[in-house]
């Protein structure tokens, strides 16, 4: 197991390197001179050159990359152009809020998805199966940013039960676990949960359906095992695959919540990202994307290792 772990860790390094290259190149593909955002309009050519040298922008790209990555490993992600504050601080504050949202959505989505999927797999080709399949197709097809707006129309505009914006009373962005804050969490978390419910239900349905037709299930029934015990065997067989799908979904929830965060003005990483885009704050854009992507890479790694740890059928060497 330890060799497997080390081998997986080594395999992650080139991917992490590639991710950092893409994030570095993001700023390079952006049109316009990065200096125009910070330089006064009447700056002379010499002043511009001096500034360019000060930011290291006169050096060749590989050197610029080396300097950037050197600062990065020391925790320095540069300064936000719009606010002047260090990018690292801004990103980590926002990622915490995004994590609250993503984990809440996962807590809603995974049990419902598993339950629906198992139900459909168990009662395959009955009306229950068809209803669940319809739900899961609708779930993966719905543009969730629109669903968010619909929920706001129903629960905020028409019924007035829940707030439609922000993460706490008075637009506070500091998250606390109390009812005043949780009220703000309900609508975005439910909205974000819909797509993973569809995906998890579809996966579990296929898994449960396949496993239930296997010979060992017949054998277990034949030797007189109770239905509940048989289902426990089925669940154990499905666990590894189901877990890996859910792990990936958690990564998607964190990285993909930007549209939902925009709909609900949730002060998370997605909201930060859309602000960075509109203020052309490229260091902030770069930093946020890098952190989210690296989180996704780490999530993939954890999923792989966890899957190998619980499923003895996977080669661990």
């Amino acid at each position: 197991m330890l060799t497997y772990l080390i081998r997986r860790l080594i395999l992650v390094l080139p991917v992490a390197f590639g991710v950092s290259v893409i994030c570095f190149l993001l700023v390079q593909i952006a049109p316009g001179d990065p200096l125009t955002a910070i330089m006064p309009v009447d700056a002379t050519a010499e002043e511009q050159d001096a500034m360019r040298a000060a930011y290291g922008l006169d050096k060749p790209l590989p050197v610029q990359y080396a300097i950037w990555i050197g600062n990065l490993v020391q925790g320095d992600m540069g300064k936000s152009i719009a606010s002047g504050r260090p990018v690292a601080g801004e990103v980590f504050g926002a990622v915490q809020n995004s994590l609250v949202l993503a984990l809440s959505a996962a807590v809603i989505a995974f049990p419902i998805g598993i339950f629906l999927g198992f139900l459909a797999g168990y009662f395959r080709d009955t009306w229950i199966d068809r209803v669940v399949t319809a739900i899961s197709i609708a779930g993966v097809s719905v543009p969730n940013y629109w669903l968010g707006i619909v929920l706001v129309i129903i629960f905020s505009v028409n019924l007035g039960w829940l707030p439609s914006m922000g993460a706490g009373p008075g637009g506070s962005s500091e998250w606390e676990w109390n009812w005043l804050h949780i009220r703000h969490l309900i609508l975005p978390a439910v909205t974000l949960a819909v797509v993973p419910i569809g995906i998890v239900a579809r996966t579990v349905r296929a898994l449960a359906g396949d496993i239930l037709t296997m010979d060992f299930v017949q054998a277990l029934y034949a030797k007189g095992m109770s239905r509940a015990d048989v289902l426990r065997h089925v669940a154990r067989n499905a666990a590894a695959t189901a877990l890996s799908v859910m792990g990936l979904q958690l990564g998607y929830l964190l990285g993909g919540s930007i549209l939902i965060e925009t709909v609900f003005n949730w002060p998370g990483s997605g909201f930060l990202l859309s602000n960075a885009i509109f203020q052309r704050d490229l260091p902030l854009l770069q930093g946020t994307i890098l952190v989210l992507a690296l989180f996704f890479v780490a999530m993939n790694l954890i999923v792989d290792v966890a899957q190998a740890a619980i499923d003895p059928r996977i080669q661990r060497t």
Partner: protein
Amino acid sequence: MALAETLPTEPAPAAKPQGYWSGVGARLIRDPLTLFCSAVILGLILAAIFAPWIGLADPYKGSMIARLKPLGTEGHILGTDEQGRDMLARLIYGGRLTLFIGLMPVVFAFFIGSALGIVAGYVGGLTNTIIMRTVDVFFAFPSVLLAIAISGALGAGIVNSLVSLTIVFVPPITRVAEAVTSGVRALDYIDAARATGADAFTVIRVHVIGNVLSPIFVYATSLTSVCMILAAGLSFLGIGVRPPEPEWGLMLNTLRSAIYVNPWLSALPGVMIFITSLCLNLLSDGLRSAMNVRD
């Protein structure tokens, strides 16, 4: 002699061999849901193409006194938007850009990804390593994040959206194409073809493509719904299509300010996105079973 006489002199009339595509067609005809979904998609595309000739109001012409009229208003069956422009006209015209930006990236990615994946899968070795490891890096980004990152850096615009969405969908298609091609590459008939002296290009053209395109195609169709949602999502965020063009995601964004005035009107563009993406998903599922592709 007696034995020979009892033998049939002519072979029993064999059933006409059914081709692969006629089989697919026959299965599709018997699948009403898939047919219905293709009709809806086709209808939306045709309506978008022929929008100027079907007697709709001008989608750009607003009216200060007729803003945010509710559904069912005389002369504006689906009401008017925040600038008094006819919603029905804008929804139908909106299909032009939304469907174009929502479908074309998958088409581009299908060609680029298939080419990369088939080369990687057939040639193998170092070429495979370089292509596939590069593809792996893109898998480190959730698709929404990657699309927003590239579009955010490039800025708003139709071409930029097409570029960023194509980049998002090339890696998954390449991965599928590579997997399918390496599977076919290992079969004996490919060795036989190579033994006759055919070069790699000929073998790929004659023997590989026909056997790998169906699964890649079906996989690509399953991405169209996500692509549609993402394309409209980019415009919704303001990094896709620019105003005043009618586009469903953009309309959803500009109408958000009206949810307290005329809530259900502001949800209409999203209904269009939902219907389209639902039909694309069901159509893809139908094609998958009709074409006998297993994932």
